[in-house]
């Protein structure tokens, strides 16, 4: 299937000489939730801004649903809703006016029923006559989302959607994202909260220093790069790890009661099964066993560190 967004060879060098993006190639699949991960200053917002038409790229090309973002900017931009990172709203407008304004700006005829539905879905209906300046931070964030959804976009960009957002709003937002996806909306979110990507995304892209370091199906990524840890609670404490187990690089807890084995699917270390067999053969007994998968966060930190 044709990707809904196709970014090829996009670079961006600012007038200051700062190269924010180096040769970005990225396809976004129709209907997916794509998480773009990266540390601050990695180029996430620059990339989004280029696709949305806010920043001019230095070279390369971008198409949105087959429409070139320059030649067919109307068709391309009309499909996109953007929720930027900063809370930037005309403070003196009412919620109702500002959301209707956004709808008009994107070329849609007035539709009070639809705008009402958007506001109700985001628990903003009670505030429809309030001026933006009187809203709390969380409410402003909802308002930004309402503006982006006011024109029924097929693609939604969420730039750091949950930065500084409380738990309730975060959960509401995740629920909303899932609902939108069920309606076939493609969602691209940038974040440096890994758990967000882990909870939401179908695919994950990691960007660092203006380069896409990796794009992978999330589950695949976790499987391929994920470290696993096996923790054994020993029946009787050990003073040292016997030399016979040196190839496992086991860690012994200070009290000698716990053995930890760290392994991943790429390493050359032997598997868990052989370790357990050998421990039994050596007469080391354990009363409990526990395994942990490493989180996306660790994977991410490793990747970024490797590149630095």
């Amino acid at each position, binding site marked *: 299937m044709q990707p809904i967004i196709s970014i090829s060879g996009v670079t961006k060098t*600012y*007038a200051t000489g700062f190269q924010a993006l180096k040769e970005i190639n990225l396809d976004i699949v129709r209907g997916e939730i794509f998480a773009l991960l990266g540390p601050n200053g990695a180029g996430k917002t620059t990339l989004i*801004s280029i696709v*949305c*038409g*806010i*920043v*001019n790229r230095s070279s390369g090309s971008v198409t949105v649903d087959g429409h070139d973002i320059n030649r*067919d*900017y*109307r*068709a*391309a*931009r*009309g499909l*996109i809703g*953007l929720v*930027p990172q*900063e809370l*930037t*709203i*005309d*403070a*003196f*407008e009412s919620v109702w*006016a500002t959301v*209707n*304004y*956004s*709808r*008009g*700006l*994107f*070329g*849609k*005829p007035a539709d009070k029923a639809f705008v009402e539905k958007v506001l109700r879905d985001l628990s903003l209906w009670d505030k429809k006559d309030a001026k933006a300046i009187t809203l709390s931070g969380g409410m402003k964030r909802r308002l930004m989302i309402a*503006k982006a959804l006011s024109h029924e976009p097929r693609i939604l960009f969420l730039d750091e959607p949950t930065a500084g957002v409380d738990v309730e709003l975060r959960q509401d937002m995740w629920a909303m994202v899932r609902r939108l996806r069920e309606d076939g909306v493609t969602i691209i979110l940038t974040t440096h909260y890994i758990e967000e990507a882990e909870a939401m995304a179908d695919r994950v892209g990691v960007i660092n220093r203006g380069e896409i370091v990796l794009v992978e199906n999330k589950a695949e990524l976790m499987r391929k790069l994920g470290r696993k840890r096996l923790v054994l609670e020993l029946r009787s404490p050990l003073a040292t790890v016997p030399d016979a187990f040196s190839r496992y690089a086991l860690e012994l807890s200070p009290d000698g009661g716990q053995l930890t084995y760290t392994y991943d699917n790429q390493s050359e270390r032997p598997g868990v099964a052989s370790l357990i067999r050998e421990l039994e053969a050596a007469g080391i007994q354990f009363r409990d066993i526990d395994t942990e998968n490493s989180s996306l966060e660790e994977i991410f930190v490793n990747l970024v560190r490797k590149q630095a």
Partner: protein
Amino acid sequence: MNPRAVMNLHAVWAIYRVEMARALRTVLQSIVSPVISTSLYFVVFGSAIGSRITEIDGISYGAFIVPGLIMLSLLTQSISNASFAIYFPKFVGSIYELLSAPVSYLEIVIAYVGGAATKSIVLGLIILATASLFVPLTIEHPFWMLAFLVLTAVTFSLFGFIIGIWAKSFEQLQLVPLLIITPLTFLGGSFYSINMLPGIWRTVTLFNPVVYLVSGFRWSFYGKSDVSVGVSLGMTVVFLLVCIAIVAWIFRTGYRLRN
């Protein structure tokens, strides 16, 4: 139908409406304060100076300064309306929405400049009505009066739009109106006929574009002008074209909008 050939009229209307709503919300600042300050000009200049200069070109001094006063407000308000309208979203960051919307540059200009010009035209007409309470007015060429009003409002709204895009701070936003426009309007023959100036200063004055606006506008009232009406009209149109060219360049290059 080619979607690019269709205007996004919903967007033009949305922007225009927001701009007009702002004017209504800030009605004191937008309408009342210029009316009060114009009335003060009228009282101070009209009475104080008018008692010494009884008439110019056969027109009573009070009536003589009316077109100049309207022009003065029209220029400053057009510039400040339009420059603020585009600078403010840049300042708070809400410009992102405009830049990401399927709107053409032409539509953006029509909406913002249209909004700013509408406000200053309404203001000009209110000042005209206010002035008619103080002095008897005649308007010999009502069509041309309106034409100069609209042309000037549009031209200087465009000029304000350029300043609003160029400005990087509120200080810069005020700089051009304060350092250039205010002196030009005061020296542009609003309060006197340039024929009253000594030779060399009269020549210098002819480099001031405001002279042509005021002169042409005054002609539409009283049929008398400092410079010929054709030249007035020509100069106004030239300035309009210059502003259009600059705006076109700004949008083509993304100057200070799309870095």
